[in-house]
């Protein structure tokens, strides 16, 4: 009971923060520069609200809530993949050649995940949700975590000057890594009670953490001026007499 109450509290606070952030972005007219953030926040709000409506209407144990949960999860995982793609695009804004390669890699990865999940579906055709959506969601979620880490390493290697993007990527990393770890723990303990309880609390807590990091980024970290992709090394000023030569 207490666990359910906590879950409701986290879920409602999450919706509240997501809605406030969307409102803040609209209020301060920052929509334009934050396409990925707007997109993911809007998906989160829609997903969470749908789940909350079904939960309120039909309860935890109903089949309709089960379908609503996994359908929204499917959309959220696709949105998460979309966000990572948009972050890659932002990181490669001035590296068109690299972006073309990354784009092909991202499409291939999505097709590969869908194909692997399709194999599980072909073996068990009677239950589309359990054998395709759930497997697809888990695999794509972990793929997003790995992609996000690759993006972080790429930014680090490029010596990117976009501090905002680096922190946004860190926020997404918290959102992906926490649930992935707890869900693996649930699997390893064969759905043990403690692991399940931990997962119920950790997943909304990680979303909460990501939202706090994003809120910090949007409010405090200024967006780097366009055109500067790398931390350019400042050249020493040339004395006036020498420059005349």
């Amino acid at each position, binding site marked *: 009971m207490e666990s359910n109450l906590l879950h409701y509290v986290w879920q409602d606070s999450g919706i509240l923060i997501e809605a406030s952030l969307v409102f803040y972005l609209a209020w301060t007219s920052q929509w334009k520069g934050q396409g990925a953030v707007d997109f993911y926040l809007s998906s989160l709000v829609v997903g969470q609200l749908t789940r909350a409506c079904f939960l309120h209407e039909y309860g935890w144990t109903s089949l309709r809530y089960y379908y609503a949960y996994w359908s929204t999860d499917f959309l959220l995982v696709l949105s998460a993949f979309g966000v990572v793609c948009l972050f890659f695009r932002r990181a490669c804004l001035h590296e068109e050649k690299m972006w073309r390669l990354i784009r092909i890699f991202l499409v291939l990865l999505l097709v590969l995940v869908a194909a692997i999940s399709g194999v599980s579906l072909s073996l068990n055709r009677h239950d589309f949700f359990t054998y395709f959506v759930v497997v697809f969601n888990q695999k794509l979620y972990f793929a997003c975590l790995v992609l996000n880490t690759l993006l972080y390493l790429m930014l680090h290697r490029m010596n990117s000057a976009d501090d905002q993007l680096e922190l946004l990527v860190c*926020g997404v990393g918290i959102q*992906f*890594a926490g649930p992935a*770890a707890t869900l*693996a723990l649930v699997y390893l303990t064969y759905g043990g009670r403690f692991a399940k309880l931990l997962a119920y609390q950790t997943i909304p807590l990680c979303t909460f953490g990501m939202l706090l990091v994003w809120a910090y980024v949007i409010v*405090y970290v200024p967006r780097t001026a366009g055109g500067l992709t790398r931390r350019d090394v400042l050249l020493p000023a040339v004395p006036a007499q020498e420059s005349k030569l």
Partner: protein
Amino acid sequence: MITATFVLILSMALFFFYIQVTCQKILRRQFDREYFQSIVTANRLEFPSLRKSLEEFSVPVDYFRLRMMLKCDFLALTYLLKNSANVKQRYSNEERLLILYCRWQFLSLAARHLLKLGEEPATLRLASVLQYFANVVGQRVNAVQFGNWTATDYLFYL
């Protein structure tokens, strides 16, 4: 089973990695000047000298003394963060996250001492958090006018 174990270990490591990177990014915030100097002087904080001795001279410091010094500075600065020139008398979310990070680093310091891995990295990370706290306090105190008092005078009578 092997895949799940691999996912668990990798995800946990990445989770802590991202938290650490986020904290370090926040700590890199630039202040328009070094506000922490006046706070260090007024409160006789020891983390700058500790950091200098580790960075420049690599002088080994007794672990228990080192821990005590950092703990005292941490307590003093968290008190100041909450009470000096802070109208709301509470921490911001960013400060709460950094306080948690600080506690995590204290644990890391103890673990490193037990495993004999060397306390230097954890000490330097703690010093950078403390410097950030001192900068925030200094900036706040500096923003408020107290007649002819300087920031050091104000903190001395707090």
